[in-house]
């Protein structure tokens, strides 16, 4: 396959009217995978994995907490990636992707904080301690809020896309700096209690449960983002012919079913 052909086949799905049906076909599969993996992961985590010697049953919250925390950080990077692609290549779908990712990232961030607080109460004796990882996670949540608020506040979609992309990139450059500075600031607290450095000492079933849950979070994210991107595309391209055709067809389908 020569280069121009490949690039054409790559960019074929970068056009919204090609992406729309593709996303519609793929999303349910990812959603189903997410559902199955979540059940599998929770079963592994809550029924198979042994009780932790020091923390008892409480530690089981990590099966939700850790994948959520991973995902929240990873989604911000993906958001910044799509923003950069959008600014450089001027593809509207990239901006749609980064804006579709943001609410899911913020949700995982919130889940990580919440489960962290629930785990902290019995373990540390307080719902919140200014632990380096919790604090960075909180700042990441603020970065998500800033991105979402900015893209929502700007009415002109093109300006919203590009302004959001700039702030996502500025945030991505700052995330490591924030993380480093917060760690520097936080020297009073003990090192990570639940971290990958301890992974070898973890029971394999614990690790397996956590990984399965992480993959489930991935599948969930992909499914939700595809669906959200679809509705964003419909809204943005509502004046175009192909959206008119899609809406008509879907109305007919619904009419036929009723």
């Amino acid at each position, binding site marked *: 396959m020569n280069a121009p052909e490949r690039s054409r086949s790559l960019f074929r799905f970068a056009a919204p009217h090609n992406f729309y049906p593709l996303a519609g076909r793929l999303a349910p599969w990812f959603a189903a995978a997410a559902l199955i993996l979540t059940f599998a992961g929770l079963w592994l985590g809550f029924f198979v994995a042994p009780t932790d010697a020091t923390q008892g049953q409480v530690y089981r919250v990590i099966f939700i907490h850790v994948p959520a925390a991973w995902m929240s950080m990873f989604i911000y990077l993906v958001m910044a990636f799509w923003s950069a692609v959008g600014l450089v290549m001027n593809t509207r779908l990239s901006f749609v992707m980064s804006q579709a990712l943001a609410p899911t990232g913020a949700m995982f961030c919130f889940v990580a904080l919440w489960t962290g607080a629930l785990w902290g109460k019995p373990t540390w004796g307080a719902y919140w301690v200014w632990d380096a990882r919790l604090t960075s996670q909180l700042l990441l949540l603020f970065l998500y809020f800033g991105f979402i608020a900015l893209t929502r506040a700007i009415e*002109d*979609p093109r300006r919203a896309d590009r302004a959001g992309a700039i702030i996502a990139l500025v945030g991505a450059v700052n995330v490591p700096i924030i993380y480093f500075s917060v760690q520097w600031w936080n020297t009073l607290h003990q090192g990570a209690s639940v971290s990958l450095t301890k992974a070898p000492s973890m029971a394999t079933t614990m690790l397996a449960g956590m990984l399965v849950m992480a993959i489930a979070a991935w599948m969930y994210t992909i499914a939700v983002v595809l669906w959200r991107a679809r509705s964003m595309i419909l809204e943005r391209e509502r004046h175009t012919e192909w959206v008119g055709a899609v809406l008509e067809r879907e109305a007919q389908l619904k009419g036929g079913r009723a």
Partner: protein
Amino acid sequence: MLEVEDLACLKGDRLLFRDLALRLQAGELLRIAGPNGVGKTSLLRLVTGLALPEAGEIRWRGESIRREREAFHRELLYLGHAPAINDLLSPLENLRFACAAAGDEVDADSCMQALVRIGLENQLDLPARVLSQGQRRRVSLARLFLSGRRALWVLDEPFTALDVKAVADLAQALSEHCAAGGMVMLTTHQDAPFALTPRVLDVGAYAC
């Protein structure tokens, strides 16, 4: 000199115009016409490079203005809707800053002469906040007398709020610029006594 091809302009989620093409040669005066809201100002802003076109290309001396932005901006003078006048500065300070910021080496004397020529000899040192709308516009228009070496003048409603005599003076200045091989692109709802008949481009013809 200036070539515009297949230009499309998106405002919000509405396409204002598309497939717009125009060419401007040395010595030409082009009037952009069309009803309100058709995209005249948007077209001017696209041509200056301030706004990004949805599609199409704009070339200056054969080079895309996005690639050769700095060279293009050295030869461009754009006076937009807003007069770019700061209330806390006097007309003289405003004009000197406008020239210096654009990269023109202009001394205080020539700035003063330009302001006198446009009829502001009594307001040179007043803060701009006491000036009338017409006087503010004149301050920004005074740049025309100092920008002869800039080949392309893009003017958005330059005649607004000016009296009859000022309109005639301005029309003469624009005609002189064209006679000297310059180019002028402007929007206006008024008739002005130009020495040459302006070519007219109706944006409405490309509206979507």
